[in-house]
């Protein structure tokens, strides 16, 4: 697997980890913005490779960059209501199916006879609309800047083909306003950011220098493989230790300063900036996209006029504080008790990228000492 195995080299990883160990002199909190990065950190045990001393440490804080987690409950409920309607084919990315709405989830809607389908691309949903002219095909267009170009393309194509049975339930959210909101929040503890590499592959990183300047934080554009993450952390640490606050690109094999101009052009043709509610966080001004007036006919919210949605979040769930980095998943009183991947109270326990699920699955109830002893057990066995 070219471009993957090179970035999973254990020896180089250990070397970068040692560099980080040597550079750190104080406790630092670094937020990785993207859920994909959270997933990779936990899956590869990157957090165990970082300094954890009383005086010098690095704590990785998991950011709000998981589309499954931050899509507002009201929109999930609308999705459920639309998906339950006869004559609708409701298409979604796989991991939205288990996200709990107020009373149900898409899996349950499917079980009750709703035509809910997992697709890998919104363009597959457009094809379904072409093949099923007697059905209304709705695509659940959630995600950050990363998934937006394909979603924009689906609407663009549907309009060009004159499809009247295709629409998108849009809830796009944007990274830079979220970083701004986190840093502006009272009691913010984040010292540096790893910006989401895939978001930047679309948008470039020209939006970040003003943020780095305004809040005096290092922002490092970072990829997703173990070496990418360790390199991003190393660069952030070196900046913090030398008192710098710059925007750096540690993912230059994918990301350029300008980003993908063709994608940005399509995005500006189809979407316009809007205020968005983030699940667990609240409304962040100008933090999302919606279809603009030229494409509003393809907006599923307008087409289906769903009313009477009364949302109710679980009072036990502290997902918002987790997403803001205010608490660690295990500090939530419901974590691993009332709230598990089997019975998630909040979306962060559902998605494989969600901070709570990542903690539960990969660090489940294991203390650092227990994990270390598991390691010594492995290396101590001569036959393995």
């Amino acid at each position, binding site marked *: *697997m070219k471009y*993957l195995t090179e970035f*999973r*080299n*254990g020896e180089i*990883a*250990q070397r970068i980890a040692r560099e980080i160990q040597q550079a750190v002199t104080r406790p630092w909190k670094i937020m990785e913005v993207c859920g*994909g990065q959270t*997933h990779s950190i*936990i*899956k*590869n*045990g*990157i957090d*165990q*490779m970082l300094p954890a001393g009383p005086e010098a440490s690095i704590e990785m804080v998991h950011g709000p960059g998981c*589309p*499954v987690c931050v899509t507002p409950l009201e929109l999930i409920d609308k999705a459920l209501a639309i998906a339950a309607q006869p004559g609708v084919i409701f298409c979604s*990315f*796989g*991991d*939205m*199916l*288990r996200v709990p709405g107020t009373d149900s989830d898409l*899996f349950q809607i499917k079980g009750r006879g709703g035509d809910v389908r*997992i697709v*890998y691309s919104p363009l597959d949903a457009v094809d379904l609309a072409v093949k099923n002219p007697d059905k209304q095909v709705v695509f659940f267009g*959630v*995600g*950050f800047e*990363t*998934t937006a170009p394909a979603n924009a393309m689906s609407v663009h194509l549907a309009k060009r083909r004159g499809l009247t049975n295709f629409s998108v339930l849009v809830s796009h959210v944007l990274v830079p306003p979220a970083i701004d909101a986190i840093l502006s929040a009272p009691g913010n503890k984040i010292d540096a950011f790893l910006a989401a590499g*895939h978001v930047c592959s679309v948008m470039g990183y020209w939006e970040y220098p003003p943020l780095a300047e305004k809040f005096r934080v290092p922002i490092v554009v970072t990829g997703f493989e*173990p070496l990418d993450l360790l390199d991003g952390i190393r660069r952030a640490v070196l900046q913090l230790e030398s008192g710098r606050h710059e925007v750096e690109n540690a993912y230059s094999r994918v990301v350029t300063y300008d980003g993908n101009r063709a994608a940005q052009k399509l995005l500006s043709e189809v979407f316009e900036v809007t205020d968005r509610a983030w699940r667990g966080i609240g409304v962040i001004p100008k933090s999302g996209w919606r279809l603009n007036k030229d494409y509003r006919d393809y907006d599923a919210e307008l087409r289906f006029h769903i009313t009477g949605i009364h949302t109710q979040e679980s009072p036990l769930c502290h997902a918002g504080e987790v997403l803001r980095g205010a608490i660690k998943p295990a500090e939530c009183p419901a974590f691993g008790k009332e709230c598990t*991947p*089997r019975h998630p109270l909040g979306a962060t326990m559902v*998605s*494989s*990228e969600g901070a709570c699920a990542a903690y*539960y*699955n*990969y*660090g*489940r109830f*294991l203390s650092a000492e*227990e*994990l*270390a*002893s*598991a*390691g010594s*057990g*492995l*290396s101590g*066995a001569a*036959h*393995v």
Partner: protein
Amino acid sequence: MSEPSNTGTPDFSNWSCPLPLADYPTIVMGHGGGGKLGNELVEHLFLPAFRNPELENLGDAAVLELSSGSFAMSTDSFVVQPLFFPGGNIGELAVNGTVNDLAVSGADPKFLSASFILEEGFQLAQLAAIVQSMAAAAASAGVKIVTGDTKVVERGHGDGCYINTAGIGLLRQGISVGPHRAQPGDAILVSGTIGDHGMAIMSVREGLEFESQIRSDCASLNGMIAAVLQATGNAVHTMRDPTRGGLASTLNEIAISSNVGVAIDETRLPVRPQVQSACELLGLDPVYVANEGKAVFFVAPEAAECVLEVLRGHPLGRDAAHIGHVTTEHKRMLVARTAMGSNRVIPTQIGEQLPRIC
């Protein structure tokens, strides 16, 4: 007990529907009605394909002659979609699945039943191809299909063809294996690459086209397992075939049943590059992806090398690997050492793996 015959495997490559089946190129409700149409299906399709003395009696039950001893019995239903996939079809799965369940229980599989639930309108030619594959798989595994049933459901009430098989096997003398018998210190071996079947199914089900085709590993494992048991006997404590839920689910189940910790080294897991790539693309983890022709062995550490040698000497075990060991640490959990040198817990999945958004 008479030995299963390996001769007389029907060749359906030039199969064409003899009259009167030709009157009905598709399954109709009458094929499950217990009348003439159903009898014709038995006479012209099932009997020629599966022919053996026990089946030929065509009684309400097959009468089997069994030597004394202990027997293992297992049943499994098969609802795979699509019915035909690269490397196999539902018929092969139905035979091999039950054969493998018996084999990993330490039994020598002998007899199978086969029960079909067909959807009205199902192509008879497709059924013939499935039945032919079952006959070939049974012959290759050395088992006889001795009884069966056919039901037809109305169009829209089935998915073409569902198959249930049940099987009986003779337990091998002096062998005692089970999911509860894994012991601290045991070496853990897997007989080959993981995730092939699941990704083969997904590649056709989702219409994903990869540069190189991924084929299912569907195979009967009783021959390979017999070779291992013959060579090492009691040194094998636990055997499982990691089907649905993949290797991770099987290892977690064993960790819980035996009340031990299971430790594996991720870098030692055999995974085909095309399977790994497809998993990366879809955001899946091969440890959770289904296999249909692989076995996991928990063996006494001193027998590990011998078992590995026997496995690698068998055509189905060429890629066998020693992937980990049983420990008294982290009881009831599966912990993997990552390529980074760190450790991660691999939990049991809640439901099926869902492809991630991005």
